[in-house]
């Protein structure tokens, strides 16, 4: 994995996520945290953008933030769940991280 | 009764420290001797806080008491008699809850 993209903004920042996804390579990973977890839900709004992510790029969501907002049941199948420890591991596996906000 | 436990206005800082004995101490300081009737109302306020995360204002406390304890007790007069002026503020103080937000 080269770059871990960290996205913590809601759907009001869709232009920012679009740029993030356009910037990603297929070796990168993307994790949704804080208000960004709404992107990990299964909905017309989110699938449109997430569908544009590079094929092999891993897409993750932080379980603690997802659960706090009551969205665990709505999670999209294409997104993998990690907890704080998993987030740390992803960070360690990547050469660098890029926070989008 | 240290300043660590209470804020400047005498409200308990940490709601988890509350217990009935502490309620008696707070009430005594305010010149109120707690009876079973007082504790019923205190319980309603604590339940309200538990459910909504809010300290009820007077009008809403009256409503909540009415729902839980019936029409007779769910009146401003009844609460005023037990807890004096601004009953919600006094109830919250004795119940170890934060000061109601919209208290004027």
């Amino acid at each position, binding site marked *: 994995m080269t770059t871990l993209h960290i996205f*913590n*903004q*809601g*759907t*009001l920042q869709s232009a920012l996520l679009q740029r993030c996804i356009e910037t990603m390579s297929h070796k990168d990973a993307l994790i949704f945290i*804080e*208000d960004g977890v*709404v992107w990990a*839900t*299964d*909905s*017309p*709004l*989110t699938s449109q953008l997430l569908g544009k992510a590079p094929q092999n790029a891993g897409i993750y969501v932080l379980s*603690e*933030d997802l*659960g*706090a*907002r*009551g*969205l*665990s*049941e*709505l999670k999209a199948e294409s997104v993998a769940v990690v907890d704080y420890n998993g987030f740390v591991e992803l960070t360690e596996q990547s050469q660098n991280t890029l926070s989008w906000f | 009764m240290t300043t660590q436990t209470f804020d400047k206005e005498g409200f308990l800082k940490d709601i988890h420290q509350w217990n009935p004995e502490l309620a008696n101490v707070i009430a005594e300081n305010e010149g109120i001797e707690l009876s079973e009737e007082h504790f019923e109302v205190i319980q309603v306020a604590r339940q*309200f806080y538990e*459910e*909504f*995360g*809010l300290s*009820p*204002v007077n*009008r*809403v406390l009256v*409503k*909540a008491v009415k729902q839980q304890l019936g029409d007779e007790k769910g009146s401003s007069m009844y609460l005023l008699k037990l807890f004096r002026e601004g009953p919600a503020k006094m109830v919250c103080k004795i119940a170890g809850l934060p000061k109601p*937000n*919209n208290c004027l």
Partner: protein
Amino acid sequence: MSAKRLLFVFSNSPFGNALGAEGLDAVLAASVFDQDVTLIFQLDGIYQLMKDGDTADIGIKDHRKGFKALEMYGVDTILVDAMDMEARGITESQLAIPAQPVDRTKITETIHQADAIFTF
């Protein structure tokens, strides 16, 4: 003096910022003065109303349960943008309180009728 029509618009997701909690406080404060209070939840503001969720793991006080007290405070006009709800795959049964899904025309109308508007 007749009651003023106050409109509170929620557009942001909970917990990332304090807007939701601040908005709730403002609504409750307004309700004490017997004003005509309306709430609109739109865009990510709809996530303020999700029934489920537990903030224990993120160490933030869950202000959302305060919205469930709105009825007790005499606030009962709560509108949600139906299209935004649909776009997010959220149904009424997933909301913590009975809110009325409305179209954009109704929202425009509500904004026009308001005497004062507060956004969160």
